[in-house]
């Protein structure tokens, strides 16, 4: 550990890199595996760069697929950090104060994945500079996609800079000045809601797609995000608790469980409301839902997918709500994992693909991602996990060894 007077911004970055390159044998193997997956992703993307998006399963009817599905879901994961920030800073909950930095790390990783998914989905990634304000052109305020670019990048900045300031202050052996960063924390709370509402509006604002053009979409995005995101954070905290010396208090898990259960129940109520509307008196606006839940014209590829998702979602919610293991982590952690996966299935592919089927002229096709899409996606997940582990590792070391207020 360096002496206090030797620590500056340069040593901060050097130390963060050093801590992340060192580590136990298992940790290094984990890093290498992530690198291999990222390499596979780059290799798969090289085909897309050479031949265009024709190497994906998308076509003129299903013009958005696996990439945009994952993007949509991960925006929710990023927004969910607010469920730690809100209690920590607004209600001054001391337990959450200790873990809020981990939530912010997860948010940064999720946002980097979101932006990468958008980038790999572009037909002309080299022209992406057309999106940069001032040197490009921004169709603002009319295009919701322009809004989305703004709010996602803004949220990334907020969630990266506030923790960076706090950690750097602690690294320098100083107390972070709460008056300086508090306004940004409050801004980030509103911003978290906005990133997910704006992403919902991206779909909700299209009268061409009745499946999406539904005022419940935005609120339902929030509810599912506040279930799936804290579920993931619970899993991350459990990993940290069991594999590092940074111990997480039991009460954090209990409070997170409460947040997850309430959000998951609201999400299920809204899902039920949507299903009721589509099937009580089906109109031609219900055809996407019919395709999704029952199949259409012999095309049924999403039917097992969505029913699996709905059943798993229901079971996991029940387990989390009734807590049969009496707070036994061996029951609750798998339930969190299953809930996370179920929401990923439903809010990713289960939302994006059927919105495009049948086409506005009534044509039904099936969509299956190709190996290129799968490997690029795996690569992006590996990138996200890498970012999250780098940030959290640095944060934990600073909080444990450098923070002047640490016990």
């Amino acid at each position: 550990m360096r002496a206090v007077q030797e620590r500056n911004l340069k040593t901060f970055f050097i130390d963060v890199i050093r801590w992340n390159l060192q580590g136990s044998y298992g940790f290094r193997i984990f890093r290498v595996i992530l690198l291999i997956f990222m390499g596979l992703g780059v290799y798969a993307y090289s085909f897309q760069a050479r031949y265009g998006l024709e190497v994906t399963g998308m076509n003129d009817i299903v013009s958005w697929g696996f990439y945009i599905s994952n993007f949509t879901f991960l925006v929710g994961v990023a927004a969910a950090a607010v469920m730690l920030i809100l209690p920590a800073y607004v209600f001054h909950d001391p337990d959450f104060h200790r873990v809020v930095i981990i939530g912010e790390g997860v948010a940064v990783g999720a946002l980097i994945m979101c932006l990468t998914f958008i980038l790999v989905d572009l037909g002309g990634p080299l022209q992406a500079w057309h999106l940069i304000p001032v040197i490009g052109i921004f169709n603002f305020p009319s295009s919701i996609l322009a809004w989305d670019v703004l709010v996602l990048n803004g949220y990334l900045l907020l969630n990266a800079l506030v923790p960076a300031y706090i950690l750097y202050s602690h690294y320098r052996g100083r107390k972070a000045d709460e008056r300086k960063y508090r306004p940004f924390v409050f801004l980030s709370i509103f911003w978290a809601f906005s990133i997910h509402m704006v992403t919902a509006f991206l779909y909700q604002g299209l009268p061409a797609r009745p499946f999406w053009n539904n005022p419940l979409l935005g609120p339902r995005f929030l509810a599912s995000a506040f279930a799936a995101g804290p579920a993931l954070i619970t899993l991350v905290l459990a990993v940290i608790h069991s594999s590092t010396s940074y111990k997480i208090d039991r009460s954090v898990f209990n409070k997170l469980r409460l947040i997850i259960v309430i959000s998951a129940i609201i999400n299920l109520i809204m899902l039920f409301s949507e299903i009721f509307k589509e099937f009580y008196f089906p109109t031609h606006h219900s055809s996407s839902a019919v395709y999704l839940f029952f199949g259409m014209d012999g095309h049924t590829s999403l039917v097992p997918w969505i029913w699996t998702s709905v059943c798993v979602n229901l079971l996991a919610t029940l387990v989390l709500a009734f807590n049969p293991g009496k707070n036994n982590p061996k029951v609750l952690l798998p339930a969190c994992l299953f809930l996370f996966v179920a929401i990923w299935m439903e809010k990713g592919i289960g939302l994006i693909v059927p919105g495009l089927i049948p086409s506005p002229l009534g044509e039904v096709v099936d969509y299956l991602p190709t190996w290129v899409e799968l490997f690029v996606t795996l690569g992006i997940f590996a990138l996200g996990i890498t970012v999250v582990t780098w940030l959290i590792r640095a944060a934990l070391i600073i909080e444990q060894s450098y923070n002047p207020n640490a016990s």
Partner: protein
Amino acid sequence: MKSDNSSDKNGCSCTIGTAGSDRRSFLKGLSIAAAAGSAALATGCVPSVEAAAPEKMKLRWQEFFKDNYRLMTQEEKEATIARLERLAKLQDNLDIQMSSEPPIERVLYGYAFNISRCEGFMECVSACVRENNLDRKTNTQYIRIFEMEPGKLDPSTGDGRYYHKVPVENKFYMGTQCFHCENAPCTKACPIKATWMEPDGIVVVDYDWCIGCRYCQAACPYYGRRFNWGKPEIPKDEITTRQHYLGNRIRPKGKMEKCTFCIQRTRVGRLPACVEACPTGSRVFGNLLDPESEIRFVLKHKKVFRMKEELGTEPKFWYFID
């Protein structure tokens, strides 16, 4: 009637505002630097046969840093067209003539389709494919013809993939394409103003400005847009060499495209290829602002309707019954 007016009418210049000139000079600086860099590269090589490669490189660099078509001055438009023509020659040994023909004043194009006359021969489809240099590999088509059951008027109930002798007894045929909506959801959706409505009512795409996000395709309620999933393939002897920058020039991969009412033809007073090819005379095209035009006659004297009127998109494409 210089084509700069296209940007004024669509309210583009106002949003760019004062930042526009900074941005423009910044872009110009970039492209000059790029050109200088590649020129230096070029002089380092032995001229003659290899000279084509650095030239190609230089042209591509300049193309990469060029502006949105609506913000280009007339000189810039001519410069990019010269570069594109030269690149077509260098890369594929093609002699193309590209135009930047501006809209004709006091013209607003409209289209009408006679559903009692069309017999589903699809001559329009093949004429469109040839005229607009559409990709043959994925069989891209701007026009779809649906075989309809009597009593239905929604193409989603019809058969868009029929392959048999036509016309079939007791069926009728309905064509769809881009309807060039006055209130177009696609242009509203585009995050970078790569697609817009021209003053003569044609909704166009700047293929080089498009980033290929496909939000416009999701926003279109009429399935009017097509994406270049790969590099378009067209047999060399079938390429239409009279092209328009906003029209039938061969699209790069990863860009959106669509029907442009054959902008390369209609702006010089010709009819769209589909109208000309139709053997039954079901297709009517003309100037909505001219009270003497055939399209105005149809709108005045026939029973007309538009598709998905309830969405408020105001298509400039009407169906009518004799």
